[in-house]
């Protein structure tokens, strides 16, 4: 049950700590359980309806401490399943996490206290043995102290022999029992407190459903925007060019000057169309990204940024195109924000491969205080990253610095 990396004696202090936590939580559970039962009963009178949620919140905090400590002891963090957002009674009771907490409560009361006390108790037996051995002479001669299945201790010799043996046994027990008790308690807590595979999958499906619908609607909005740009811009320009050329054709014989003007207008229209089209294409997929890949594209952005930018790109390995594009857009957006709003004098961009994920960190030494959703394009960044099952974190305290961190899995 324990972390494989630590072994033997090193586990004892952690086990003792966990036993102590178990006792503490057990006693707290002992106090909380009757209170919760009372509050539940009071629901019949109405008062409990208001007080029970408070009780459940206390329970939630208790169970969360148990989760944290269990993870810490076992050294195996478990993916968290978030609690239902609301604080109302119906919401709490509809949340499977609450019911898991409730199942844990009586067990903590019994197992936590028992195993905890056992572990801690056995741990002090060497001390007891030591003290007892030293004080054998306090006992009256006809009623001597007895050790190890009733052997009498009536001299320093027998005290040394029996006491020493007892001490060795006690030390062995003090090493083995607390670790065993803590491990058992840890296992019980894990089983009761941590989400089962089904629940974890359900939570994952919820996340995926949300991000997928975000991705789909973002994609849809993007297509509409492109359609509008092409329809209102490029297509209209082409119509106008064709019209000017048609007019020019009709006048070819009789009015060379008018033809010249019409053709010049047609050419100017074509130039405008090219500018617009280039912008549409650039937003669809940055050409430099397909030409040079992520490192080259980032180098280009960094050197074009108005704020001096230091770029470091590690060995990235295979990166899927959508991940490259997402990371590229986040870096562009973050650099644009840094240049426009932060007043920064230096930006550092670090891109690296972290196991399965591509990580990018953009940090500026500006004024900070970046607020999500305040027209900073952060919403768009987040949607883009989350659509790929990635994570975006922005840390921007007032006074700076601002750090944007993206983690995007490269394998699905």
């Amino acid at each position, binding site marked *: 049950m324990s972390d494989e990396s630590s072994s033997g004696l090193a586990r004892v202090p952690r086990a003792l700590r966990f036993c102590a936590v178990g006792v503490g939580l057990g006693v707290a559970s002992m106090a909380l359980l009757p209170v919760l039962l009372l509050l539940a009963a009071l629901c019949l009178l109405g008062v409990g309806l208001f007080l029970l949620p408070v009780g459940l919140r206390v329970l939630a905090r208790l169970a969360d401490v148990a989760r944290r400590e269990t993870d810490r002891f076992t050294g195996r963090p478990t993916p968290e399943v978030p609690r239902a957002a609301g604080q109302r009674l119906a919401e709490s009771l509809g949340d499977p996490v609450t019911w898991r907490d409730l199942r844990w409560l009586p067990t903590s009361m019994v197992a936590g206290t028992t195993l905890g006390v056992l572990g801690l108790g056995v741990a002090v037996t060497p001390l007891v043995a030591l003290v007892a051995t030293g004080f054998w002479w306090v006992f009256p001669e006809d009623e001597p102290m007895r050790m190890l299945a009733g052997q009498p201790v009536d001299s320093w010799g027998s005290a040394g022999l029996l006491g020493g043996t007892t001490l060795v046994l006690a030390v062995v027990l003090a090493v083995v029992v607390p670790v065993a008790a803590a491990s058992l308690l840890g296992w019980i807590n894990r089983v009761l407190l941590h989400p089962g595979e089904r629940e974890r999958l359900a939570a994952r499906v919820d996340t995926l459903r949300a991000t997928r619908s975000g991705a789909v609607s973002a994609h849809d909005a993007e297509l509409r925007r492109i359609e509008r740009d092409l329809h209102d811009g490029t297509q209209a320009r082409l119509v106008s060019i064709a019209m000017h050329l048609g007019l020019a054709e009709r006048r070819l014989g009789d009015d060379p000057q008018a033809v010249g003007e019409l053709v010049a207008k047609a050419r100017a229209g074509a*130039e405008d169309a090219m500018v617009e089209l280039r912008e549409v294409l650039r937003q669809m997929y940055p050409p430099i990204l397909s030409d040079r890949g992520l490192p080259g594209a980032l180098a280009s952005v960094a050197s074009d940024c108005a704020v001096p930018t230091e770029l470091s790109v590690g060995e990235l390995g295979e990166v899927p195109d959508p991940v490259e594009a997402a990371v590229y857009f986040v870096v562009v957006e973050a650099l644009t924000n840094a240049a426009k709003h932060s007043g920064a004098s230096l930006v550092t961009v670090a891109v690296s491969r972290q196991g399965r994920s591509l990580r990018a960190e953009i940090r500026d030494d500006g004024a900070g205080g970046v607020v999500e959703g305040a027209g900073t394009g952060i919403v768009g960044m987040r949607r883009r990253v989350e659509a790929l099952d990635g994570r975006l974190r922005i840390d921007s305290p007032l006074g700076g610095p601002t750090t944007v961190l993206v983690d995007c899995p490269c394998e699905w």
Partner: protein
Amino acid sequence: MRVVIAEDNVLLAEGLSLVLTSSGHEVVSRVTTGDGFVRAVAEHRPDVTVVDVRLPPSFRDEGVRAALRARRDRPDLPVLVLSQYVEGTYARELVADGARGVGYLLKDRVARIGEFLDALGRVAAGGTALDPEVVKQLLARRAGPLVTLTPREREVLGLMAQGYANGEIAERLVVTDRAVHKHVGNIFAKLDLPPGDSGHRRVLAVLAYLEG
């Protein structure tokens, strides 16, 4: 002039050929790949070349790479690179070797035949032709002492960076040569650049400054 064209899109290659031949130039070879370009240059020894950035097989920046490769063998081979979009990185790479006769323009510019042929002639003669968009990006990047320039001086600086000589700048701004000369002097003084450079060296100095 004898020209080699590297362009894989048939429509554009036809258009370019038409523009060039109708103004008295000779298209000695039309190729569609980077390797083909390097070979054609070695074989035909053209006066000037026109290269598209994206070429098969990778459709990435094959054209830029081929141009740089060809210029390694023949450092002053005049190359005018055309692109559907402006990318400062390519302009930097093309100028970086310090050799003469290089251009980087948006394909849109071909539509203004006169200006396009001027740019081609400038490149063939060992000069520079940088797209105004590239220069605009460069100017936007480098704040600092640029704010001390008057709007007219900024204009002149932009045209210098594009590769125009004083006479051409005067023509475009409809001012006298003397006036341009004065502006150039002021700009070099304000930006603390060594005066007296001219032609390609002047462009390099200005670009190096804008690069920061």
